[in-house]
């Protein structure tokens, strides 16, 4: 299936099909707003929850489901930092690099993660287990330095705690 965007490009859905349950959730989100485009960020998050990231084929599939332009969906998907347009690890480690964590030795923690995982910030481990990404102030500055793994907030985290902390994320 292909969907023709109004700006003239054609993006193949690459055999991607929205999971029926996801499609239903997206339509449910659409009902919360006066216009369907408003549900597009939530739609991307729904797809990402199932697939870990947003595969190329999901972009036209979401556009078709919501009745909006492919370019608008892709424009949004590439703007927001928590929408992943490339595959990520099973667990995404968001490490806060803002000022309060910087002042409570975030850089030492970041370097320890880089050494322990053997990847740079922005990369995924070869076994596909972890992706390490920077994030804006996590709003837990009283516990800096902080990280968010999945939905779990940790802080303060010291470099020597990393191996034990990561054991919980298979």
């Amino acid at each position: 299936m292909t969907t023709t965007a109004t700006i003239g490009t054609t993006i193949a859905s690459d055999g991607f099909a929205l999971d029926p349950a996801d499609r239903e959730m997206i339509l449910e989100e659409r009902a919360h707003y006066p216009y369907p485009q408003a549900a597009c960020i939530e739609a991307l998050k729904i797809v990402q929850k199932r697939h870990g990231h947003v595969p190329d084929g999901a972009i036209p599939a979401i556009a078709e489901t919501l009745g909006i332009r492919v370019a608008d969906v892709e424009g949004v998907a590439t703007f927001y930092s928590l929408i992943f347009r490339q595959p990520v690890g099973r667990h995404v480690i968001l490490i806060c690099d803002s000022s309060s964590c910087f002042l409570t030795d975030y850089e030492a923690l970041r370097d320890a993660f880089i050494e322990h995982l053997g990847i740079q910030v922005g990369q995924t481990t070869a076994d596909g287990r972890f992706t390490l990404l920077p994030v804006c102030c996590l709003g837990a500055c009283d516990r800096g330095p902080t990280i968010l793994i999945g939905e779990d907030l940790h802080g303060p985290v010291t470099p020597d705690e990393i191996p034990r902390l990561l054991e919980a994320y298979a």
Partner: protein
Amino acid sequence: MSRILQSAGERRAETHPLTWRLHDDQSPVLLEEYLDTQGYAAVTKALEQHTYESLTEEVKSANLRGRGGAGFSAGFKWSLTMKGEGVPRGYIVCNADEMEPGTFKDRLLMEQQPHLLIEGMILAGIANRAKQGYIFLRGEYHLAAAAIQRALADARADGWLGADVRGSGWDFDIALHTGAGRYICGEETALINSLEGKRANPRAKPPFPGQSGAWGLPTVVNNVETLCNVPGIVNHGADWFQALSGDLSSDGGTKLYGVSGKVNNPGLWELPMGTTGNRILELAGGMRDGLTLKSWLPGGGSTGFLLPEHLELALDFDTIGKTGSRMGTGLLTVVADNQSMVSLTRNLEEFFARESCGWCTPCRDGLPWSVKLLRALEAGEGEAGDIELLEQMARDLGPGKTFCAHAPGAAMPLASAIHYFRDEFERGITRPKGEAHADPIPVGSV
């Protein structure tokens, strides 16, 4: 786990309107308990006794100033909302996109007392004749999202939201909208674009959101803490709110103040508006590890650095504003004497450069350039003229020069760090003017 909220004494309804119900174990205050402790009484009172004009007037005379950092009068903002016969009913949007570096106050209110926020939003809805509220919550606040969803469902089931609110004939509902990252979403017009499912680029003002906001309808955007102050004002009156701060400040109410950085006891306290920095730092147990305080940010990464002598000032919008900084969110970030100001400023400008939405040139190109210069100074590879160039950039990124307040926010810590700690920047200069940096720092790595 340590408690985020701490107390300087007993918390009571009359003195601690934001936090008096909160539990020591940090569990959320659920509907039943909220109702048993005057919860939603302000909505009942507003529906029975107020018109939308008188409700707006009450909040205006309380002089409730925006707790998201700008300090704009909430009541005055409401008075500017287009409403009345023939005007379509618009939206109340709660800015719950707390991402300001060093700020962790709204998360506490939403995780532990979501009904207070919902009550504040219903009142804002009545005063502005809105038909619908949205809570724009940052995507990383998972615990807050769960608490809000539960509270919305409970409030709806009990008739506080939906059609015919408590038999009043008035309808108003609230939906939770969770974001997907990007600091710029906290800018109110960027937030509206994001709510509409678009890229979070700010919009030109005017028209202001009160005239044409979400989907072209009148829209009021208020911060979480601002909205949480409204039920108390409606219950006890504008005079009570003004009296909360006593002689400490011309601004009324309490403030959730906090401290982060290398202090013994980081946390949050609800204190009268206008409490001094010294008192707040004392509650935070002073500096840890034998460090001494060199500088501090009064309320987030987009406020200007201050010196220890400024700690004796009242922390309110006008007093801190006179120093050339801003109170911002009122959560102090303290800097110890062994911290390089050049490195810290570099960290802040990296943040602002990364978070620029890219819409206007000074911000998109200027901020990475400032990072490049700061990295050179940090590495001791700066050249003569770099500091003056940074100062020029801070002016060119200031208010009125860019599309929104993002770049001015970035300029404030930059200008103030150079102003107060110029010697630290000068130590980074080792090359004559015009000599190319030996190892150019790639801007793209910001």
